[in-house]
């Protein structure tokens, strides 16, 4: 019985190193916004560019984590998570547009010669209501979509295709000027958030910190879920749904819960993404965007909580370097990376790290 012994040893040593690493990364992440407030000539100063870039990657990391909850644990590959991310972003964007336009209509509506705002814009000048929208819109959409999809027992590749179609439909809808979300230009030209300038160092640092907190909270939530009986039931849904039904569990409720939760997390990440990046437009809903998110998760290692964060960080980090150094080769490189991981690292980069640790 050497197997259980080796397993417990790995379990004992593994989490400690992992926890220490996570602690270190979070310490660096918390230090970054503080350092960004230092004067520009200080050697430890973090530039606004770096802070925004890392903040953006952190938002993507939250999205990757949310996708991993449904894909890695419950086995539902969503190719439409970009939609939930963008919807959260648009809800935040509505508030920012109202801040920028004051008592008047947002600029793009004036260009369309509209006299009044569409009904769904009411209340968006309130920060609180906009935050409610950030949660409610992606959450409700996911709930309704999931309710019908799971009731009809749509699984596997059919489910992926439907989510892909959903985000594509969302993109086409938001591209239209008549929809009332700024058409293909989306929202930009933000000025203030809660009365503070969006681009001031203090606001940037606060938004960054909020993102780090959300990431930490999502990680903790995911960890608690994975440890609970609920998490084990999700794994069971993924591996043998029929068996689970004959054990007396109704898989629909479990799938719907994690699916909706994942969409809400995505929405929150999108809401923090928009003020940091300064723009939201329908291209965030492009099918390729959602597919890329799936690549981050696969690359990092699905079914682990740290893997997707690593994947999102690695791919986006490389992307920002590559698109500057060799812009025309980025997509080839991304494709090659995906092939290498699929062929040689079935458990992703995190699986590789774990194997080294165990040995």
């Amino acid at each position, binding site marked *: 019985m050497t197997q259980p012994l080796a397993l417990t040893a790995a379990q004992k040593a593994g989490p400690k190193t992992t926890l220490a690493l996570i602690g270190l990364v979070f310490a660096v992440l918390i230090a970054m916004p503080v350092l960004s407030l230092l004067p520009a000539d200080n050697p430890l100063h973090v530039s606004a560019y770096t802070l925004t870039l890392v903040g953006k990657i952190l938002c993507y990391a939250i999205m990757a984590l949310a996708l991993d909850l449904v894909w890695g644990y419950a086995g539902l590959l969503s190719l439409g998570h970009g939609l939930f991310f963008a919807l959260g972003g648009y809800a935040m964007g509505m508030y920012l547009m109202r801040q920028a336009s004051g008592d008047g209509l947002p600029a793009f509506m004036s260009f369309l010669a509209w006299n009044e705002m569409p009904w769904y814009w009411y209340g968006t000048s309130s920060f609180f209501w906009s935050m409610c929208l950030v949660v409610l819109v992606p959450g409700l959409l996911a709930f309704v979509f999931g309710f019908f999809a799971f009731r009809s*027992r749509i699984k596997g590749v059919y489910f992926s295709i439907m989510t892909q179609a959903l985000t594509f439909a969302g993109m086409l809808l938001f591209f239209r000027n008549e929809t009332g979300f700024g058409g293909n230009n989306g929202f930009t030209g933000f000025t203030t958030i809660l009365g503070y300038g969006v681009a001031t160092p203090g606001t940037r640092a606060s938004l960054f910190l909020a993102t780090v907190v959300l990431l930490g909270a999502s990680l903790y939530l995911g960890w608690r879920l994975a440890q*609970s009986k609920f998490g084990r039931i999700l794994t069971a849904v993924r591996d043998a749904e029929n068996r689970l039904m004959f054990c*007396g569990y109704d898989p629909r409720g479990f799938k719907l819960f994690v699916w909706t939760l994942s969409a809400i997390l995505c929405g929150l990440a999108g809401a923090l993404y928009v003020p940091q990046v300064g723009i939201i437009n329908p291209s965030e809903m492009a099918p390729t965007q959602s597919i890329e998110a799936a690549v981050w998760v696969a690359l990092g290692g699905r079914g682990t909580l740290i893997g997707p964060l690593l994947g999102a960080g690695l791919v986006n980090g490389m992307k920002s370097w590559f698109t500057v150094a060799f812009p025309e080769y980025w997509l080839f490189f991304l494709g090659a990376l995906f092939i290498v991981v699929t062929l040689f690292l079935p458990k992703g980069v995190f699986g590789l790290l774990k194997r080294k640790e165990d040995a």
Partner: protein
Amino acid sequence: MTSTSTPQLMLEPVLDAGQTRDSIGLGHRAQKSLDVRHGTVLTLEDINVSFDGFKALRDLTLYIGVGELRCIIGPNGAGKTTLMDVITGKTRPDSGVAFFGETLDLTKMSEVAIAQSGIGRKFQKPTVFEALSVFENLELAQKTNKSVWASLRAKLTGEQRDRIDEILTTIRLDASRERAAGLLSHGQKQFLEIGMLLIQEPQLLLLDEPVAGMTDAETEFTAELFKSLAGKHSLMVVEHDMGFVGSIADHVTVLHQGHVLAEGSLEHVQANERVIEVYLGR
């Protein structure tokens, strides 16, 4: 296994019992104990099932008594698996009566509701949760509140832990409790699945070829286990292995082309001329 006319990936929506909790997929609260006043745990009368014109079951009538151990035998395509599908709600009969106990109409219940009310099923191919450990497999199967909210807050009580330990000893997997179920041998998986059924505490166990792929020693042990279960539970075993059937069954039903051909003790059935003709050969 496939017995529905639609592809497996896109099964037809289940017909719900119409209860609100069920229709929104929140799962079921544990039901009251089964009403078996007249001594029959399962009543099937004049069941008909057809797939695209092919009659899988024809006017099938079958009763299973409380605590009975019944073996179902029959040549390939006799409708044995379809019969199990009808009982567990996977397939809806075109006509006929199917009652669990005296009060539960199986033709109107969802698969989950049927499992919750006390019918456990073992698949032909051993199906366990491969990524989870043996212990966790039993934990999930254990009889308890199986709704989403309960699962989010669930913690094992000492009593439940003891019960799992007890089952682990019964199915002789005590030493591999922490192993991933996917790493077990074929026979061990069969036992784990039987253990998962037992811990569900069902009134009626449906077992589809439980000894397929088992060694002789394992088969013998399974026979003993089933005999010890009869009385406490009702068992319905579909099996091809005649030696195994002979060692456990007091009552055998022979199916042929979706119809009950003969019923009685194994000797009685084996002596029946029509049975010899269609099944036992020549």
